[in-house]
């Protein structure tokens, strides 16, 4: 008999006041009893609508049923068969627009908390590891070929994991000193603890994936060289080049890209006194942008001791691309939202440090062709937001470093790599690409979905050789 509660089992969280003083995880995770209770809300629909909403096609009813039955390690096996980063996905996927949006329970009441259950299954395994590590499956004869994966972010790691399972000899090349891509440098520990990321990456190594850090493809090695001694190359270098606003004063001290701010805090652990990398301890912070990255930067600033943190966004809250949960968490913690405001100038003091952000009020107009409402400036409505730090979180573009020294890789006008939509094959034979390098900045799970599709295409390509 399913649990007929119309609402999700609530997620225990750290108290908002307490959590702004630390980088510990905000959402604490279900207990076994809570997980079973929630899992029993699943109706086990025959047509499995939730799965259609998952970019990596996790067998959702399958693993949820195992949790409901109290078989946590079986749940993990089902989950891990299609998702090699489940503890990550359970925390950072926008389930509300994917699997959970299609859940039948959501028609009357709240959908099953699939994301929380996914996290539970992954965390349960990490807390009590199963004795036998997973061995590479061996695969077919052709699958002993060497594959190079460029970029150890969500796309690359997923592609590498799937190929390793098929028996390929996979080497992942990572520019940073630590793998994980945005999972490591971008998403803060209070949303995604770094030991969780490290654990899932170690599991990939257990599958036979070799990870070589400090290799900048395009500089240390070229993709051309990788092609010479690998049967195929997957490019998953993401979209790492930060956009700036292009307004006066943007080069004043105290103006940072969200990338820089977050990399200092997350990858370089600037919040920890034991680490050498500095981060500015600000008093009043203005974060420009309305996405998850803006929320992450704002919440980091609070935890670093800022008295006042404002998110400045040119449209209204309804249009903000950030997940509702992130907006809610940020607000609970004390982040203020300055909506319908667009920066026009960063103001500096006599030391050329930021002292404020001059903005203009915006007004929403009619929905445009893309369904988004247009915005326009309200004349003579300028105002100054006092700030000693401005963090620019208005998106990233793909970095073209990876193709230096390699001819024949085509990019579109936005600098995104052009690939075949079905196979993710790039314009060079043997080269595949996926994730933000193809789509521009998107989500972790979309990148993972692309990594998975590319792995299947690479396998088909090598079998066909």
């Amino acid at each position, binding site marked *: 008999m399913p649990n007929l509660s119309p609402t999700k089992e609530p997620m225990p969280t750290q108290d908002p006041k307490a959590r702004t003083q630390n980088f510990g995880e905000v959402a604490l995770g279900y207990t076994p009893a809570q997980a079973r209770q929630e899992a029993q809300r699943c109706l086990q629909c025959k047509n499995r609508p939730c799965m259609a909403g998952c970019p990596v096609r996790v067998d959702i009813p399958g693993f949820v049923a195992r949790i409901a039955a109290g078989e946590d390690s079986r749940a993990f096996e089902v989950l891990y068969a299609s998702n090699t980063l489940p503890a990550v996905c359970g925390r950072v996927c926008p389930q509300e627009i994917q699997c959970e949006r299609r859940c039948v329970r959501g028609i009357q009441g709240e959908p099953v908390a699939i994301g929380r259950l996914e996290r539970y299954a992954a965390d349960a395994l990490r807390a009590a590891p199963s004795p036998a590590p997973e061995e590479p499956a061996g695969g077919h004869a052709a699958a002993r070929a060497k594959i190079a994966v460029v970029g150890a972010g969500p796309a690359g790691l997923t592609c590498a994991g799937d190929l390793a399972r098929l028996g390929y000899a996979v080497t992942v090349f990572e520019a940073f000193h630590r793998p994980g891509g945005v999972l490591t440098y971008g998403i803060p520990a209070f949303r995604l603890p770094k030991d969780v990321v490290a654990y899932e990456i170690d599991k990939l190594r257990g599958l036979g994936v070799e990870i070589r850090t400090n290799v900048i493809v395009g*500089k240390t*090695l070229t993709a051309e060289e990788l092609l010479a001694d690998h049967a195929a190359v997957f490019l998953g270098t993401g979209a790492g080049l930060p956009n*700036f606003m292009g307004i006066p004063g943007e080069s004043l001290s105290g103006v940072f890209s969200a990338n820089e701010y977050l990399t200092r805090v997350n990858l370089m652990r600037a919040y920890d006194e034991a680490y050498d*990398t*500095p981060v500015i301890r600000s008093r009043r912070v203005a974060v420009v942008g309305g996405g998850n990255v803006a929320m992450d930067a704002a919440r980091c600033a609070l935890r670093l001791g800022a008295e006042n943190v404002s998110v400045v966004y040119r449209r209204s809250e309804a249009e903000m691309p950030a997940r509702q949960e992130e907006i809610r968490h940020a607000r609970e913690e004390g982040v203020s939202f300055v909506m319908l405001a667009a920066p026009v100038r960063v103001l500096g003091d006599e030391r050329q440090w930021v002292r404020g952000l001059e903005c203009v009020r915006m007004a929403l107009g009619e929905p445009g062709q893309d369904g988004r409402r247009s915005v326009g400036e309200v004349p003579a409505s300028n105002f100054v937001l006092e700030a000693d730090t401005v963090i620019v979180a208005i998106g990233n573009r793909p970095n073209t470093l990876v193709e230096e020294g390699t001819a024949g890789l085509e990019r579109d006008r936005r600098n995104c790599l052009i690939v075949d939509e079905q196979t993710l094959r790039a314009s060079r034979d043997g080269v595949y690409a996926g994730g933000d390098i193809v789509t521009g900045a998107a989500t972790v799970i979309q990148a993972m979905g692309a990594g998975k599709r590319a792995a299947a295409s690479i396998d088909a390509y090598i079998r066909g050789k």
Partner: protein
Amino acid sequence: MYTILEKRALSKQMTKMTLNAPLVAKKALAGQFVILRVNETGERAPFTIADYNRAAGTIDVIYQTVGKTTMLLDTLRAGDALLDLAGPLGRPAELDGYRKAVVIGGGAGCAIAYPSAKALHEKGAEVTVIAGFRSKDIIMLEEEMRAVSDRLTIMTDDGSNGCRGFVTDALRELLDGGGAGYDLAIAIGPIPMMKAVCQVTAPFGLRTVVSLNPIMVDGTGMCGGCRVTVGDQVKFACVDGPDFDGHQVDFDELQNRNRAYQEHERDACRLFGQGI
């Protein structure tokens, strides 16, 4: 393993390390840099590749112990290893097609100017090197610079080597009111020096390339911390540079941005000195 194969003092303040880094050595060119991390709690810090040996698979870096990271680096000896090293980063210096070049190095900047002088010399250009130091006892790379130049002038601020003055004094004299046929100037050193050199060369329309050293984290274009204003454009020194047309660079802005963590650095050095 990024093992330190040799560590040698070049002067009272400057040290050269030869590092095992075969992949970097294979690709390295004059003007490029590496990012290294000494240990787990260390910063990612950029260092110019002062020299490389492709056959031996080594690169040289030269540093002055001025901050926490270089102090930490200086605690290592030959046989020890760095935790991380990545490169070569940045665009190589563009040195083709020049006939007569003057390479100006200031203090520690000579370590970075030297590979460019060497490359120009190997490409057949007539090379004049002007090097400036505060005093005689911190002069370094004299023999190396002499070997790759047709003319070497070493200036000291205090005149302790017999040539008192700034590099700009020697440069003005060299250009002799007419430019003396030079078609390239390279200036590498403290920001005020590079700015002053550009002011001297501008009236001659002499192309002047400077190598910039802004604060950076990743070195691959990701953080944007190293942005500099060049002409009317914002450039990232790590991927668009580090070399730029000096006549277009906003040096005052760069100087100011480089001061962002000054207090933090001072505290870090003080604590390091106290063994904390």
